[in-house]
């Protein structure tokens, strides 16, 4: 221990920001090539779920999570406006104090109906839903067994809790089973999986994995953020599609994708589930969603229950785009289209950024994804389709990719 300093002495200061120097340097290097900052795009005007103005140019949006195109649905907008008028701009309080309005109960009821489950708990974001549920249900001495490619919110939930965290290789059933087998007898076990993994757009073999998890007495949590509304006969996700939703103990989801607004949730049939409202800190210690948000979510969720035509059209677009990009000569994240996400693999970050910019000049926005968000240090141009993309737009997109691919030297 150092002695206290006298009044006329000072110690040398360590800049807490010096740990970010490598990243600052990497960004400087990338931007010095003259490429537009891929993480600084501003949409000046949003025209529809699939079109916005970016840098004064009309741009097709192929990098949003607006899978079902609900953001401009007239019923959804009307419900939001009505709630703004009736309940005001915000709740200014926690769900457990003054922040539960009729609308919050209504959206939880809509979720129970949508998933045909007994309990639903709404969080202010999807991130907080994972953070809160995972960190709260898996405690000291328990084990969390999770896929190595899990979303940041799952990892952060693990880090916030006190459980032992045991990852396994992506979608590897045998690796998962080995780890479950080695957990000491009597310990609590939580297996955490995702329906759709958002970077490559691949799905998990949930039926097999959940069967193994149950064999070892584990509880199962599945994040269906990227499948809700679209995958499964009723849009309940990959577990519904594979016929194993009844064996899932907790489904985590979000309003910021197919539902078209913001918020997160957990649905469950666990008989003691309601106690979560008192013990889950990311639920308790934050303000609840604004009334307009829960009103738009409720309307959107109820419309998604019967959106089978939209689902069919989105699948059609996904198949067309996947085939079109393969035929053009691009390398994709999955051999077959498995979701509304199609990931185009780039050789490196520099050419990925060039290609991203070339697409923007064509009038197409996609997500540029890079490590650490991506698996295996890949740079990806991530395309996510919307049910409102027309067949004509999908053809336009394939043409834009082909031209930009040649400009950026990705295609021969």
């Amino acid at each position: 221990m150092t002695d206290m300093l006298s009044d006329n002495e000072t110690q040398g200061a360590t800049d807490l920001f010096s740990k970010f120097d490598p990243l600052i340097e990497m960004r400087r290097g990338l931007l010095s090539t003259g490429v537009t900052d891929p993480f600084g795009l501003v949409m000046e005007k949003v025209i529809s779920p699939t079109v916005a103005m970016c840098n004064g140019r009309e741009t097709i949006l192929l990098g949003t999570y607006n899978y079902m195109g609900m953001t401009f649905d007239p019923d959804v907008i009307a419900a939001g406006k009505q709630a703004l008028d009736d309940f005001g701009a915000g709740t200014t309080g926690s769900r457990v104090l003054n922040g539960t309005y009729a609308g919050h109960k209504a959206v939880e009821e809509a979720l129970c109906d949508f998933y045909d489950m007994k309990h639903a708990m709404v969080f202010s974001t999807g991130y907080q839903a994972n953070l809160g549920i995972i960190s709260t249900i898996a405690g000291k001495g328990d084990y969390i067994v999770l896929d190595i490619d899990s979303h940041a919110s799952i990892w952060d939930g693990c880090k916030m809790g006190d459980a032992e965290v045991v990852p396994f290789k992506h979608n590897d059933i045998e690796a998962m089973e080995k780890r479950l087998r080695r957990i000491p007898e009597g310990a609590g076990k939580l297996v955490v999986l995702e329906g759709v993994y958002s970077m490559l757009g691949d799905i998990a073999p949930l039926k097999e994995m959940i069967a193994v998890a149950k064999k070892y007495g584990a509880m199962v949590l599945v994040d269906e953020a990227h499948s809700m509304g679209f995958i499964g006969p009723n849009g309940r996700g990959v577990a519904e599609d594979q016929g194993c939703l009844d064996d899932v103990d907790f489904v985590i989801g979000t309003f910021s994708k197919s539902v078209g607004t913001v918020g997160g949730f957990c649905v469950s049939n666990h008989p003691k589930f309601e106690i979560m409202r008192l013990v889950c800190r990311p639920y308790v210690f934050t303000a609840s969603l604004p009334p307009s948000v829960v009103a738009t979510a409720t309307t959107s969720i109820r419309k998604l229950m019967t959106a089978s035509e939209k689902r069919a059209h989105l699948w059609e677009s996904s198949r067309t785009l996947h085939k079109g990009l393969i035929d053009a000569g691009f390398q994709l994240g999955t051999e077959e289209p498995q979701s509304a996400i199609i990931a185009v693999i780039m050789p490196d970050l520099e050419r990925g950024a060039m290609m991203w910019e070339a697409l923007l000049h064509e009038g197409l926005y996609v997500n540029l994804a890079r490590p650490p968000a991506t698996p295996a240090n890949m740079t990806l141009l991530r395309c996510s389709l919307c049910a409102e993309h027309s067949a004509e737009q999908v053809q336009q997109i394939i043409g834009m990719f082909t031209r930009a691919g040649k400009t950026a030297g990705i295609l021969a």
Partner: protein
Amino acid sequence: MTMDRAETSARIAALIEPFNKKGVEITDATRFTDDLEFDSLTVMDFVAEIEDGFDIIISMNQQAEIENYGQLVDAVVKLQG
């Protein structure tokens, strides 16, 4: 049956071989990140090899405490307990 430290160390040394691309000399003080230059993907594969080799779990929480070879050997000896 429990292996002693020397035996465990010898087995880990054999398992580390394919990951030691630059042929760094391994001592108890060899650090995985700084000396062997393991990135996060290599760490995952290497940990899986050790776990399968000894039929143990090395949780992320335990991995956070392991920086060098000697600490890994000690941890594996203890986990086989």
